[in-house]
């Protein structure tokens, strides 16, 4: 594969809170390739959304990136001023959220909202913008685009709103779309429509997608590559077929065993004993080791990155020997 579009190295994010410092991201390493769909998966609080927000330069208040780099087309975004990031957002990197209402303004029609975003980043006259907006609504397969242009968000169903917010996100030809749980609030049959749309947009528009989800089945169906997060660290990453069907890390395996599958009906779901660390203490060794059935003494040290295959990496001492 070619040079990655995004290269994240050792990204660390902390929050100052009353309870103390929360270690939200503890050295994330990721690559997103052009026109690729990378799934970012893990349980609540593991840092999926924060990773997405860091790429966009939208770290919430109280949060501070304490180390790392986010390379986008060779430029480190973490060294750029806010004015530069404003240009990047929308024009190069766009985001859609779990609740499409957060990215739609209730006071303006869908058409007005698309045109507002276009005006910010492009020079075009009114009719050109109108044509392009109509075209986008067609691309996201909204029925009767001319009518949708003049409707307000509250007149649309959940699935239609999510389509409209995808249209707005794509309106300036972004190269990367960050989709944070884009279908979690939708019905199953509507989720299937939106996932199908995202898959086809990747092909037709050539956009890379960072698909943030807690659902391994969604990853299996929509992504080419996946990174599994635990306590603000990547524990395993690589092609979906290798990570999900030849999982190496004990946490990836445990997560798979806990997920309902059709083929294992009648069997029981395996719970993962223990709980996720609170983030209030800095991580020393492997964050999963206190819950890991195969933990060893050495796991109190930071885990090594082991290349299972050239594209498949696992951060775990269990595989450290096979390297040499």
């Amino acid at each position, binding site marked *: 594969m070619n040079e990655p579009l995004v290269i994240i190295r050792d990204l660390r994010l902390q929050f100052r809170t009353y309870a103390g410092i929360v270690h939200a991201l503890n050295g994330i390493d990721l690559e997103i390739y052009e026109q690729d769909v990378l799934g970012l998966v893990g349980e609540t609080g593991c840092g999926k959304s924060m990773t997405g927000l860091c790429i966009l330069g939208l770290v919430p208040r109280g949060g501070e990136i304490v180390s790392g780099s986010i390379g986008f087309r060779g430029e480190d975004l973490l060294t750029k001023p806010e004015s530069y990031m404003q240009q990047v957002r929308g024009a190069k990197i766009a985001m859609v959220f779990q609740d499409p209402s957060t990215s739609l303004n209730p006071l303006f029609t869908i058409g007005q909202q698309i045109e507002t975003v276009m005006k910010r980043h492009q020079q075009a006259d009114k009719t050109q913008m109108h044509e392009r907006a109509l075209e986008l609504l067609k691309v996201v397969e909204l029925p009767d685009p001319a009518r949708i242009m003049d409707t307000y968000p509250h007149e649309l169903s959940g699935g239609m709103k999510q389509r409209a917010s995808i249209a707005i996100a794509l309106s300036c030809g972004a190269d990367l779309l960050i989709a944070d749980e884009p279908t979690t609030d939708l*019905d199953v*049959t509507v989720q299937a429509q939106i996932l199908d749309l995202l898959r086809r947009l990747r092909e037709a528009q050539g956009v890379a997608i960072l698909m943030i989800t807690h659902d391994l089945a969604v990853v299996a169906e929509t992504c080419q590559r996946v990174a599994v997060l635990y306590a603000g660290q990547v524990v395993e990453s690589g092609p979906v077929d290798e990570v999900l069907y030849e999982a190496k890390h004990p946490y990836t395996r445990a997560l798979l065993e806990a997920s309902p599958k059709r083929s294992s*009906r009648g069997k*029981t779901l395996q719970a993962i004993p223990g709980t996720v660390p609170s983030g209030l203490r800095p991580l020393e060794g492997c964050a999963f080791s206190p819950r890991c059935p195969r933990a060893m003494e050495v796991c109190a040290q930071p885990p090594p990155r082991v290349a299972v295959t050239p594209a498949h990496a696992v951060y775990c001492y269990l595989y450290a020997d096979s390297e040499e």
Partner: protein
Amino acid sequence: MMNDIGDTDGAREAQVEVKDLVKHFAQRGGFLGRNPRVVRAVDGVSLKIAHKRTLGLVGESGCGKTTIGRCILRLIEPTSGEVHFEGVDVLGLSGRQLRRMRRDMQMVFQNPYSSLDPRMSVLSIVGEPIQTHLSLSHSEMRDRVVELLEQVGMSGDHIYRYPHEFSGGQLQRIAVARALALNPKFLVLDEPTAALDVSVQAQVIAKLVELQQDLNLTYLFISHNLTLVHYVSDTIAVTYLGRIIEHASSEAIFDNPIHPYTQALLSATPSLDRELRQQRVILTGGVPDPVNPPPGCVFHPRCSRAKDACRQEEPRLVNAGDGHMVACHL
């Protein structure tokens, strides 16, 4: 016909039986509320659950699943229909008789963060139903709460702690402990794991299955997740727009779904199984507004195989063989 509904055990007596249940909500709408709208949340639902069995009630949002559960327990009054629990006509019970009956039937809600009062200690949360229904001394009640917590796999030491000190999975177990306080026979579990991570969901599901066996419980398990429902259910009823469109054993629903909606739902459900990752049937549109259900079969506007009869006449739920009930003209 009624005797056959989802009844794969043949002669097994139904413990819970619902017939032609209807619940319409009046909703104010239009200028100054001049156009009251009627939301037909539940529109003629019949189902049966055998003793110690689990019926999984699945469907998309707004299809009336929670309303069905609430009507069975009479947490809300149905518009019409019948509900029988162990042969007793639940809708005919007066206040006091209903209070007595409520001990046998309890509900666990979807979101433990909002269903438990944050100002109450675990002791008061779990002990409240005991206090209202039984005359136990304080120490007897405390012992019972400790016993209940241990039953759901939590330490009795937790009784003086408050909801914010617990994780979602622990809170949901506390909610289950509360529901078990009066030794119920029947539990309505409304999306009990929807707010939880998969690893915690697995814990809660395992606990529910174990409790069912130990305490001889009957469950109505409400969920939008077909794959999950299969882990707990003996029979499955698929709802669509306030109706049950298919009702059969879990195996039959997965291996031989008959209704085009059930087939589409199975196909749309993302799956980790490699073999199932190929062709999808993708439905267009969403579930229609229950204020204006389509004429004929309510699914026909989204059904690729709809014919004339489907547009005109609503199909009845009939036995397609072996108690596999389906409402479809095809």
